[in-house]
């Protein structure tokens, strides 16, 4: 990127390919560029130079509107800070991507409510359907986020420090769910984490340092 002080390289000389159905862990210290790389791979941002292909789509050539469409069709997210909408219930939060897709004529299901309830059941939150995020624990909120990520049946799941905000017990349960559902759905998983144990469960891993690929 270019700043008032001149050119600033956040990421450079990175070339990776992730096969469909595989899982990849991205690790590195704070400021190494993990989240930036995740944002580029998921089409949340466009690179100033270089190419990014997602499910065969050239994200680097698409505008924001088109990248949003790609995300709606192929991508699911799980974040460290859960990113649930506080005013919506657990069920409504999970329904959100299904409704957005339905509104764009991309709906995969005729009944988003039922599909959302099914996924909440898979993460063990059926008794909490009508609860709002503030009424749920951190672990429960992350399980809602996982249900939301899988409810739209994405081909690729991006997870940014999914256990970073959780205690050991909750983190274990969330990680278990994440890998279990991913295996069940056959999605590609790209995971950013500091947790070596979590990274070790992935098919392969890369480490970043100073915006460059280390291993």
């Amino acid at each position, binding site marked *: 990127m270019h700043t008032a002080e001149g050119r600033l390289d956040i990421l450079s000389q990175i070339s990776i390919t992730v096969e469909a159905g595989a899982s990849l862990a991205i690790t590195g210290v704070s400021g190494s560029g993990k*989240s930036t790389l*995740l*944002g580029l791979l*998921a089409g*949340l*941002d466009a690179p100033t130079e270089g190419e990014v292909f997602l499910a065969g789509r050239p994200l680097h050539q698409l505008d*924001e*509107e*088109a990248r*949003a*469409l790609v*995300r*709606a*069709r192929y*991508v699911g*997210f799980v*974040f460290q*800070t859960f*990113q*649930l*909408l506080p*005013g*919506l219930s657990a069920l*409504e939060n999970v329904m*959100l*991507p299904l*409704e*957005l*897709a339905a*509104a*764009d004529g991309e709906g995969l299901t005729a009944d988003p409510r039922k599909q959302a309830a099914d996924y909440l059941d898979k993460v063990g939150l059926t008794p909490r359907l009508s609860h709002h995020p*503030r009424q749920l624990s*951190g672990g429960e909120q992350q399980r809602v986020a996982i249900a*939301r990520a899988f409810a*739209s049946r994405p081909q690729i799941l991006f997870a*940014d420090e999914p256990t970073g905000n959780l205690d050991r017990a909750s983190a274990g349960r969330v990680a278990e769910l994440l890998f279990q559902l991913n295996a069940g759905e056959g999605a590609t998983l790209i995971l950013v984490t500091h947790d070596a144990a979590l990274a070790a469960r992935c098919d392969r891993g890369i480490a970043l340092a100073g915006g460059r690929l280390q291993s």
Partner: protein
Amino acid sequence: MNLTARLFWRDLRSGRLLVLFLSMVVATATVTGISIGVARFAAALTSESSVLLGADMRLRSAAAVPEEWMTAAAGLGLATSRTLRFSSMLFANDNLALSSVKAAGDGYPLRGALATSDTPFTEGAVTDSLPAPGETWLDSRLFALLGVGIGDTVEIGDAAFTVTKVLTAEPDPGGGMELLSPRALIRIADAERTGVLKPGSRLRWSYLVAGDAEARRRWRAMLTPQLGAGQRLDEVGNMQSTVGEALARVERFLLLAGSLAVLLAGLAIAVAARHYTAAHYDQVAILKTLGAGIRRIRILYLAGFAVLVAAAIVTGWGAGWGVQEAVVALFADNIRFTLPAPGARPFIAGAATALLGFFIFAWPPLWRLERASPLRVLRRDFPPAGRRPWLEPLLGAVGAAALVWWSAGDAVIALSLVGIGGGVAGVIGGGAFVALGFRFAAGNGRLRLALASLRRDRLLNSVHALVFGAAIMLVLLLAVVRNGLVAQWQTQLPPDSHNHFLVNISPDERDALTARLDGLGLARSEMRPVARGRLAGHDKTAGRRTQAEPLPRWSFMLSWSDAAAPPGDDELTAGRWFAPGDVGVSVDEEFADDHDVRIGDTLHFDLAGAAVAAAVQSLRKVNWQRIAPGFTFVFAPDALRAAPHVFMTSFHLPTARGGELVPLMRDFPTVSVLEVERLLSRVRVILDRASLAVELMLALVAAAGALVLVAGIRYSMAARRRQTALLRALGASRRLLLGALAVEFALLGLLAGAIAAIGAEAAGAVLQVRVFDLDYRAYPWLWLAGPLLGMAVVTLLGLAASRRVLAVSPLRVLL
């Protein structure tokens, strides 16, 4: 419920949209209400002036005009009538009294109404009839002077008339000396019988017409070239009265207040929209992450806002209608309001204002919202897209000018308000930024925390000081103008206003009458000599070829003064006042302006055949709204003393002492007394109501100002929420934090109020002098009221909002 409805419902329940909604209601209500109200005021104003004429247009003439003139008026579709007025002695029971007789034709009056009663000196009831042939209706004073009652006979000239009613009110009461004589009303067909219609009689014909403006214009165009000496056309619109002036000022005030309310509402919309946007960046980022594109986000929010704007418009229409009804109801007893033709215009104007307000003030921040980067889900501090700090204030200023122009219909007011406002805003914002940069040695914990907080977010706090300052300034500004108006009305009609005129006082009665009035202990104006004369010529000083209005053809009451300074309230504006031996004339400056009369010119007068020439020696500002004798031309004593003249004076007689007039009138039978108490009471009531209307508008604008403050406080609390939670987590007590927040808000309010006082004083001076034609008055209380008001209101609102923030667990904010 679909996603749009769910998100919108959630925003509604959180209260985030309330200020935005109320601001648009205020904008719609103000413009709708004022559009309807001003139309009704204009109609009332016209009707007030029409009542003074008894018609929409009046042709005055000393002789009967050709009958074709009135036939032509009727041919143009105008209603016509006529009156003939003359002075005559009335006889009854061996008593006699000088009266001004009005002989009225069919259809009189065309505007306004006559009022009669069966008992003298009582309130009358409106009637649409006229005295029957052979009958007369008399002023109450004539009953006393002639010692007659209903059913008695009085003689007017050669004819006898039966008294059938007491005449208590009439439109077109005449002017000058004639206004002062007690009235007798008869039929015009009876005038011939009185024997007064002889050559040489002093008759005053009034030909009245009413109807369509275009027909009146054509009649006037036809008549004007044919008018001869002593003939004059009066029309609604060039009539001035205290009531008319007051209503016109109320109208101007309503427009100004409306503009300020719309500006404040716009400011509140801008602040609330910014607050809303700031609170929704994360939501938009999440929605984008989940696949929503810009178009989808736009539809999602626009649909909700469309419902909000529509609801605000409908509510605003209702509120606007209610407000104008309340203002009109204040005057309903005293002024006849005509409802404007039912039309959609005020409602369209109200709705358009809300829409304009929304798109000008709310859309730019909302536009930024739809461009929020999805990367915020990874990094919360990721900046919102498309920031151009100069663009929104610029757009806001242009939009505000457009909005004020739209609501006030006056480009000059709009540009000057926004120009001055922009300048003042710059000063306020800059001043706040500089002031917040000062470092104070503060030992007290609360003060230290407060100052640190103010300094840490100096730019944001400057913006808040600017918003608070602007709101307080606009409310203070309106209070200043309101005070100027009300003070002017009070000065115009103080409780001891002169309520009686004595006219037609012969020179040999002057001393005796003066002694008699002084003996009664009455506050009176000085005895002013009066001679009647026509302006016959105007010699301009050499080198001037400017073409001014033709000379007026009517006769003037001329006076002279041997005092060392201009008499009464008159104020010398040019030239010098008379010295012994001068033979010049002093002229009313307004008349001089209208007729291109300048110092050094010579004016020629015709006083019943005698020619008098006088050089213009000075110009005076005459207060025509004061109830006391006033004159367009005041001569040096030597110029006029030899002319035939009488004297006049005015005095205040408390209502309870009204009986003392009867012996005075008997002892000076040729002196005429005009009682204006009833007129004064009516004017006083109208001015009181005008003050109330103005205060009602002030309250509305204050409410709009409060909306801005609430919006600003809510916005500023969002920024303080996290910091407060952090301090609580670190062990700060609730009391310490509340104290620190109180100090912080008090300092912010004090700063905003102080700078608002400067702005209000400056803008108030411009508005008083330029827009309302008032004399400049300084308001020292502003310098105390501004800072105190700012401090009190901002602290109270801030603390009310802080309590809610402090009640939330720090865990919920920090985790």
